[in-house]
């Protein structure tokens, strides 16, 4: 009964929405999340829930695949480090509010030490531990090798390496050019650009949340909600034919999901105007082109009005508009996902003639 409810709720539409609400609430109530009590409570809750879930044979068979074990470790590390940073940030915020300096800024913590041997020794030991870990891993978990490659056959489901499953899940909603080349390119270039765009000196060398709300929220959104969540879905919840399966659901090869995706042009020309698609490609896709341009340009005045003044003055014009472009590109992913779930939208602009689809 509970398992069925979890299966139902883990459908991307509900789980993604729920996760966004949880994300919003936990950053909103950082005074609760950023305490040791909450951290221990969450740990106990997670361990109990996970133990209960592992007892289920279907769930166990999914997570015990050699490919999926790294993701369990990833989850533990991601949640630990995120909570720890928020906890430290919250402690410092309280200290700063009380008029003090952050913990890292106290005189006894400002003492300087030599990189050699303090840092290099630590790095050496970390390297040794990692090597031992990898060797033990390689001995105990065999590589999931399959039969020799055959260009006319694909395994079902065909899954990318676990660190690319977020990208593969993104590809469900986008054209390969967008989700395979353009968006990953923007992610990499955008991450490289962060230190040049974000010139706010606050938070340098110490944990804080209150002083860097926007930066931390937008980064955690992209990292936790978009990247890590999509890896979970791609790894644990996608079965044969890339159909969605709940965590306790048997991977029935013949599960039928009613889906009939259509392009924005077809919604307008066929469903609304009842005329049939125009011959000219650009006339056909005019609504999609308008929508895309409106999204890229139309939001700027709104953003400027709401937050623009202070940010624009602090960052300068180029940095400010680069930041807006990066945020808009990031938000295009959840928007496209919701459009797919709600109106079965395939492409906003569909020009397969030029291999251009948004």
């Amino acid at each position, binding site marked *: 009964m509970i398992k069925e409810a979890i299966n139902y709720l883990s459908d991307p539409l509900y789980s993604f929405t729920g996760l966004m609400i949880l994300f919003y609430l936990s950053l909103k109530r950082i005074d609760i999340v950023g305490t040791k009590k909450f951290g221990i409570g969450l740990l106990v809750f997670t361990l109990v829930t996970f133990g209960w879930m592992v007892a289920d044979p279907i769930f166990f068979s999914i997570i015990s695949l050699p490919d999926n074990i790294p993701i369990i470790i990833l989850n533990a590390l991601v949640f630990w480090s995120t909570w720890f940073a928020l906890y430290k940030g919250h402690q410092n915020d309280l200290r700063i509010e009380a008029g003090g300096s952050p913990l890292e800024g106290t005189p006894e913590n400002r003492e300087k030490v030599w990189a050699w041997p303090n840092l290099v020794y630590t790095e050496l030991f970390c390297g040794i531990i990692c090597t031992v870990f990898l060797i033990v891993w390689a001995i105990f978990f065999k590589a999931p090798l399959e039969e020799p490659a*055959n*260009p*006319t*056959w*694909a*395994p*079902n*489901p*065909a899954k990318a390496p676990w660190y690319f499953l977020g990208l*593969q899940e993104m*590809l*469900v*909603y*986008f*054209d*390969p050019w967008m989700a*395979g080349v353009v968006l990953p390119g923007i992610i990499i270039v955008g991450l490289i650009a962060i230190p040049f765009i974000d010139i706010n000196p606050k938070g340098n060398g110490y944990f804080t949340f209150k002083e860097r709300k926007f930066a931390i929220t937008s980064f955690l959104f992209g990292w936790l909600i978009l990247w890590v969540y999509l890896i979970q879905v791609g790894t644990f919840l996608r079965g*044969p*034919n*890339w*159909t969605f399966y709940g965590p306790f659901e048997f991977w029935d090869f*013949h599960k*039928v999901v009613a*889906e*009939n*995706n259509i392009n924005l042009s077809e919604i307008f020309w066929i469903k609304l105007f009842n005329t049939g698609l125009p011959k000219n490609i650009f006339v056909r896709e005019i609504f999609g082109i308008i929508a895309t341009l409106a999204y890229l340009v139309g939001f700027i005045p709104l953003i400027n009005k709401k937050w623009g003044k202070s940010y624009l003055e602090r960052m300068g014009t180029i940095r400010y508009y680069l930041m807006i472009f990066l945020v808009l590109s990031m938000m295009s992913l959840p928007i496209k996902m919701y459009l797919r779930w709600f109106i079965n939208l*395939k*492409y906003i602009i*569909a020009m*397969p*003639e030029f*291999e251009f*689809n948004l």
Partner: protein
Amino acid sequence: MSEETKTSLNRREFFSFLAVGWITFGAATAGMASLIFRFLYPNVVFEPAMDFVAGFPDDYPEGVDERWKNGFGVWIYKKDGKLVAMSNICTHLGCIPTWLPAESKFKCPCHGSGYYPNGINFEGPAPRPLERFKIYRNTEGKIIVDKTKVFRYEKGEWTADGAFIEV
């Protein structure tokens, strides 16, 4: 000043040394680059032939036939007196879809694109229908499938000469 005691180059000699040096360096680099470029192309490629004889049209039942899928990557589809040869490459990202007879559709295992038996895309992210190959009859009346010529639906090529044969 005698020849033996000369220790430095004059201007003309310096430039000739420079030219010889650069030409040698350039030639070596170009040679290395061409070797690397040649290395990218394998000596032997084990690829199936791009065209093959596919028997007589009467050998095929109505609907989708999978007999050439593993050897040549082609589905034969026969419907309403027309016989076509479909590519088995998904138009989304090039995976190999699976033919599901019970659901009467092709379904890609990589991102969930779905196609009707005639190759038209209807679910998942595939932007266009499966491609079709050139198909014709030889003098014996046998079917020849030629994979070098591709017919694309969105370009209106499926009605073109060679995209199908009447049976």
